[in-house]
């Protein structure tokens, strides 16, 4: 199932970023998506809607929790906050990311020397 595989890579990264964003403060969906755009300089050129299945999945896994609050402009919105398990997951994912990207970097640095 090739299409799925690609989105899975995307999903993993998306989750990592969402967790990272939520370490700052609890945020509603639009806020998260806004931050995503800011942080990544609009590299994540995906539909904003795709954030919600990811959030639902993270809810199910217990990485984030959600509550309904009044927003800044007095709007009822669902706020997401990172849980302790989410923090653990973030640390683990970041280490994994650094390990693999480190390996990739080493390979990339090695290549010119060999050429």
């Amino acid at each position, binding site marked *: 199932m090739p299409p799925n595989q690609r989105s899975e890579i995307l999903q993993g990264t998306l989750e990592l970023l969402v967790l990272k964003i939520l370490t700052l403060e609890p945020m509603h969906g639009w806020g998260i998506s*806004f931050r995503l755009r800011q942080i990544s300089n609009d590299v994540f050129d995906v539909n*904003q*809607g795709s954030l*919600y*299945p990811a959030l*639902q999945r993270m809810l199910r*896994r217990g990485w984030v929790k959600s509550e309904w609050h009044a927003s800044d402009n007095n709007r*009822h*919105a*669902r706020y997401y906050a990172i849980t302790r398990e989410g923090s653990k997951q973030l640390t683990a994912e970041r280490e994994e990311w650094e390990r693999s990207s480190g390996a990739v970097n080493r390979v990339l640095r090695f290549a010119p020397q060999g050429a």
Partner: protein
Amino acid sequence: MAWYHEIGATLRALLRRDQQEREMAEELRTHIEMERQYNMRKGLSPDESAARARRAFGGVERYKDDVRDERGSRWFDELRQDIRFGWASLRRRKGFTGLVVLTLALGIGATTTLFGVVKAVLLKPLPYGNPEGIAVVWSSWKGFPQTWLSYDEFEAWNSDIKSFNGVGLFTDNSVTLSDGDASERVRSGDVMASVFPILGVSPILGRYFTPEEDRPNGPKVIALGYDLWQRRYAGDRSIIGRAIQVNGSASTVVAVMPQGFRLPLDFGSDGKTEAWVPLATDAASEGAIPGPAFDKSGGSHNWYGVARLASAATIEGANRELATYVAQLVKDGVYAPDLHFRAFTIGVNDQVTGGIRRALLILFGAVGFVLLIACANVAGLLLVRGEARRRELAVRVALGAGTRRLTRLLIAESGVLAVFGGAAGVGLATLGLWLVRRTAPAGLPRLAEAHADGTLLVFTLGVAFVAALLCGVLPALQAGRVAPANELKEGGRAATAGGGKLRWRQTLVTVEVALAVILVVGAGLMIRSVANLFAIDPGFDPKGVVTMRVFTPAAWYQDSARVVSFWEQLQRRIATMRAVENVAAVRLLPLASEMGDWGLGVEGYTPPPNEGTPGDWQVVTPGYFETMRLRVVSGRPLDTRDDFQGPLAMVINKRFVEKYFAGRDPLGKRVRVGGSDSGLTYAVVGVVDDVRHNALTRDVKAQFYVTLAHFARAPGNTLRNMTLVVRTDQNPRSLISPLRAAIRVMDPRLPVFDVRTMEEVVGSSIAEPRFAMELLGLFGALALVLSAIGIFGIVSQVVASRSHEFGIRSALGARPQQLVKLSLAAGLRQAAVGLTLGIVLALLLTRAMGQLLHGVKPTDPITLVGVVVVTGLVVLIASAAPARRAAHTQPGAVLHEG
């Protein structure tokens, strides 16, 4: 991964579906609205802001669907759809559904019933504290493989066997409760004060017996069973400390025992003991040496023994210790070596259920086969249906249903079937267990406790689940191979049957027949075995005899003369009743209880050194030989001549003659019963044929008969427990109430109990093989019927799917018989393979039945031939009907269709 989050999420998704839907809709709406306002703030026009916000978000409905997917309940939603769809499609074909549900119900019901029995008998712990640590203690010697303990043995085991943490003696008895309006005779146990603590059972009211109460001439006390307490004293809690009339004298109630409490040897007996009194004996009154020392005579071997194992001790360890101890006793000359004296223990679980365990496990295996056959049948039916649904499934695949989804759909369908089958099966099992309780012969332990309960429901659920998988997996595998292009192109019709599915069904039928054959062989062997047991000549004629026990307490019948005259008068009264042919009374009914022996002095016979001259003693009233139709071989039976005044007369059995009068004429010879000083000397007046008193299958021992009047001449030999036996030419049960009335007229105070026909007595003595036979017979029949349905199905399918071909053949001049032969061949070939396979497997498996069988080997050729014939006939009949239809194939009609 925190699995509990997942489960929680799934549960929330299932339970709060509507709320979650609402919240999701609102959340997405809010998002788009925020984006729109953001766009407005950036200075875009209202229309442009809204349009961009929507575009940036993407398809709302699509993401909603994705979110739903992530809630973890999608599989459940789909399953619900599948089930709903399965249910609808099953409802469309009521006949098919009914047949499948019935088949499953039979399989599941039979399995659940037997599980209920296994649970009650084998799995439910005995009503004792830590039953693993309780051992029943036995003695054994030549001719007595398992017999009672003497007081000396008790003392020795109690003090010297380290594996035991306390030994207690008990025996069974009966007491008359005569306070209040009605007197009642109940079975009772005489127990040492240590017995209840050893069994680990505390009274629900009151206390244990004290050592002071458990002494000769101690205070009279009694412990009541729960049922007796409820029945006779209406559960009155103030009964503790009250005096009630027991055997005509006052006894204080000190305890009420918990419901279901029984003594270790109560489980198999026809009536449980319901009241307990202290054994109240000691070494002196037993004629034993006080303390662990042993006397050669050691007191009489009268008692059952029960022991609590010391912590960390085992039954094997206790047995080794006992063996070492007894070896030393023999070395010391206490017991002669050729007595083969032995002492051993059996764990109480083995003691109670050891005998029936093997039979039950075999039956459980057998019922598993029935379930397998039922599943195979249903799988076969589903395959046929799958055939008919090929196009429907092909359309589904073409419309995008994945293989996995299709498989699940079919399994869900069989799941729906299994749920209905299971529900009906629970009903059948409840009925089955009721039947088991109603019809289970006395003599089988704990069957009466078999009830449907929660555990049983869980078990049924499990069985239904397994059945659903078993039934659904084959059709699902088949469906997985549906290739829509071919299916839809073909136009749904071929000249001959689609090969693959037919082959599957044929395999199923072969397996079914093989399993059925195994069951029928098992049933056949049991039937032969039980027939052999019934064919054993017990030495008396049980037909037309009714029996009841009558007890004449010392309180009202002080001496032997009064007891004897009571029986004489009662017999005279009964003899005049309508339909009565003969009447008498006897000490111990044959096949109802084991008989003890008495040391004899036989004229002209000297026993080998260290061997006694034991004879089993039977006491009867005149008329017994006629009533039971014992065969007098020589001399005369005991009759009215043998009364208080007549010279002491004895009738002996053939075994007695062979053993002690080998080659001599016994008539007129003298036999002394009891010790040389106190014993009475009788003259042998007759010889009767052997009666198998202890068990149909056990060796007959030397036995003698004397009359009640003669037996009572020795002081203290008053027999108060006698069984009335009456022969009639009518149904013996019809005599029960007239007989009770006759006894009431004689003495309304006397309790009458254990009312049974002699045929029931004989029947319950072979309860276990009969129970196994009945159930195996039932399972075998069930298996045959189910296989017949399977064969009927396959032949029908062959005929139906080849009707086109048959039409062509018929048009080309094939005669009807040839067509019948063609279709029959389909069923018969599978059946023949199954039959052969089944016989081979049966030969392997029925070896496990060896111990259950009497007079028939597991390889019994008659049984095997019988099974082949019966199964063959069933197969023929099942194939014949659909095959005949083939003969009527109308070429025109069939060929025209296309």
